[in-house]
């Protein structure tokens, strides 16, 4: 039975501005992982005072080499430790966990990413292109510092946006949403995802969002990651790690 696996960091990329990628090698994971999925990653310090593993989305997959990528921003204790790891160090990781973005749709797919919320849409762009699906990726950040993967994304249909106009278009991602009926995927700050949903909710579009909530187990045992979700006419506390992280935006109780 599978639990945490100890995987070697085969490569590391320092993007600058507190963004990093770690590349890990594992055949099974590289084969089965799908955008939307995430991993729980233990903080690899001996007797660390930070005991809980941290969740990270799948970013890219390099199937030929059995390598996959986690992309993250340093925001606290755990991510700081991860940022200091080196090639050759090991990480204990559990997953892939969680559900997937539902790409079986006839409609054109619009992906809306804010900052580090870009992660799931990297590999997804590759998959959609391979499957010859029509899609647009809208990727926004505060300034050009927050826009990474520029070269990689240049092969895909990407609209870059920054609040200060220092890279791509100037404004908020929500200023550039195309009108129409789409299947919309969004990942980023909750307020952004909510606005994306507001924009499309009266159209014939369906919006799916990847929710973030503090997690402790990732396996569903602790009920720590529950969020209010509409199920029929009831509001339930649903575990993001089990029934998410991807939810239909109309089920999400936004007014929190």
């Amino acid at each position, binding site marked *: *039975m*599978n*639990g*945490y696996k100890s995987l070697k960091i085969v490569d590391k990329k320092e993007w600058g501005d507190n963004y990093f990628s770690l590349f890990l090698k594992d055949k099974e994971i590289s084969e089965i992982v799908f955008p939307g999925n995430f991993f729980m990653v*233990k903080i690899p310090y001996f007797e660390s*005072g*930070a*005991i*809980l*593993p941290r969740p990270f989305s799948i970013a890219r997959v390099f199937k030929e080499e059995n390598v996959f990528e986690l992309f993250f921003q340093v925001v606290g204790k755990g991510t700081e430790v991860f940022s200091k790891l080196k090639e050759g160090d090991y990480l204990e990781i*559990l997953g892939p966990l969680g559900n997937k973005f539902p790409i079986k749709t006839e409609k054109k797919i619009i992906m809306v990413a804010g900052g580090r919320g870009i992660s799931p849409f990297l590999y997804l762009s590759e998959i959609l292109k391979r499957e010859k699906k029509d899609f647009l990726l809208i990727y926004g950040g505060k300034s050009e510092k927050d826009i990474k993967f520029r070269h990689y994304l240049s092969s895909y249909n990407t609209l870059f946006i920054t609040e200060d106009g220092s890279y791509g278009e100037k404004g908020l991602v929500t200023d550039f949403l195309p009108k129409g009926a789409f299947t919309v995927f969004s990942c980023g700050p909750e307020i952004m995802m909510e606005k994306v949903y507001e924009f499309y909710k009266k159209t014939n579009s369906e919006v799916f969002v990847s929710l973030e*909530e*503090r*997690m*402790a*187990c990732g*396996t*569903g*045992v*602790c*009920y*720590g*990651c*529950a*969020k*209010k979700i509409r199920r029929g006419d009831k*509001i*339930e*506390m649903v575990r993001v790690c*089990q029934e998410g992280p991807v939810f239909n935006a109309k089920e999400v109780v936004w007014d*929190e």
Partner: protein
Amino acid sequence: MSEIDLTTKIGNLALKNPIILASGTAGYGYELEKYINFNEIGGFVSKGIYFDPRKGNDSPRIYETPCGMLNAIGLQGIGVKRFRDEIIPFWEKYDTVFGVNVAGETEDEYVKVVEYLEREKRVDFFEINLSCPNVHEGGKSPSWDSQKTFSIIKEIKKISKKHIMAKLSPNVTYIEEIAKAAEEAGADSISLVNTFVGMAVDIKTKKPQIKNVFGGVSGPAIKPMALALVFKVFKSVKIPIVGMGGISSAGDILEFIISGASAIEIGTATIVDPRASLKMLKQLKDLMRALNHKNIKDLIGSIITGG
């Protein structure tokens, strides 16, 4: 090399080994099915079950603290009916000792939960979670008071033939008195500790990190306190003790057993790693061998104080 005997007993409950998965940290069981084989562990306790389904608290419900975590899940649960219909059949596939963690907003509710599940063969014992906030007592929990503890256990013993384990809160002045009250009321064993009341504040927003304001602290941080309480109870009662609080290695398990626990529960460690219990089981065998111990039962309460 001779075999290590890890079997132990909690009164009439015979366990393959002293490792039990603690309530609320292992879900209902099925969540862990893809990570561990339940036949290998000593026992399992369900999440706390109220009579009716419960939504639990709003989020955020958890927060990491130094060597520990705060939680205020608010005992979200599916209620006894769904529990009986959906969970017990899952348990029936496995051969280990299963306990139901019984919760109640009132004294009556505890009794009703036990009554409802009393005839279920697959339930080996009830662990009575005496730390639930009582709605009629301004949120005080029964195990803060020896009379309340006594009367709940007494009422339950009247209607149940199963093994009754009284689970105590550590947030009290004299744990010995609470433990003795449970013993007098007929409890077959005592498990402790539940979580310590704790809190954390987001200094940017000035709001508590946990929506419920207060939460329960678990994990390695509480281990020395939990061990002291287990030892105090061991010195005060005759019924067996199930110890817990921050256990995360085989060495920790032995500390609790030497201090008087007949078995132990593993909580937060399973949250951190779903296979933690089985990893510790293996470690425990190796450690017993290294220390030249053959039989874990010989170690129960073997602590040497004085001199």
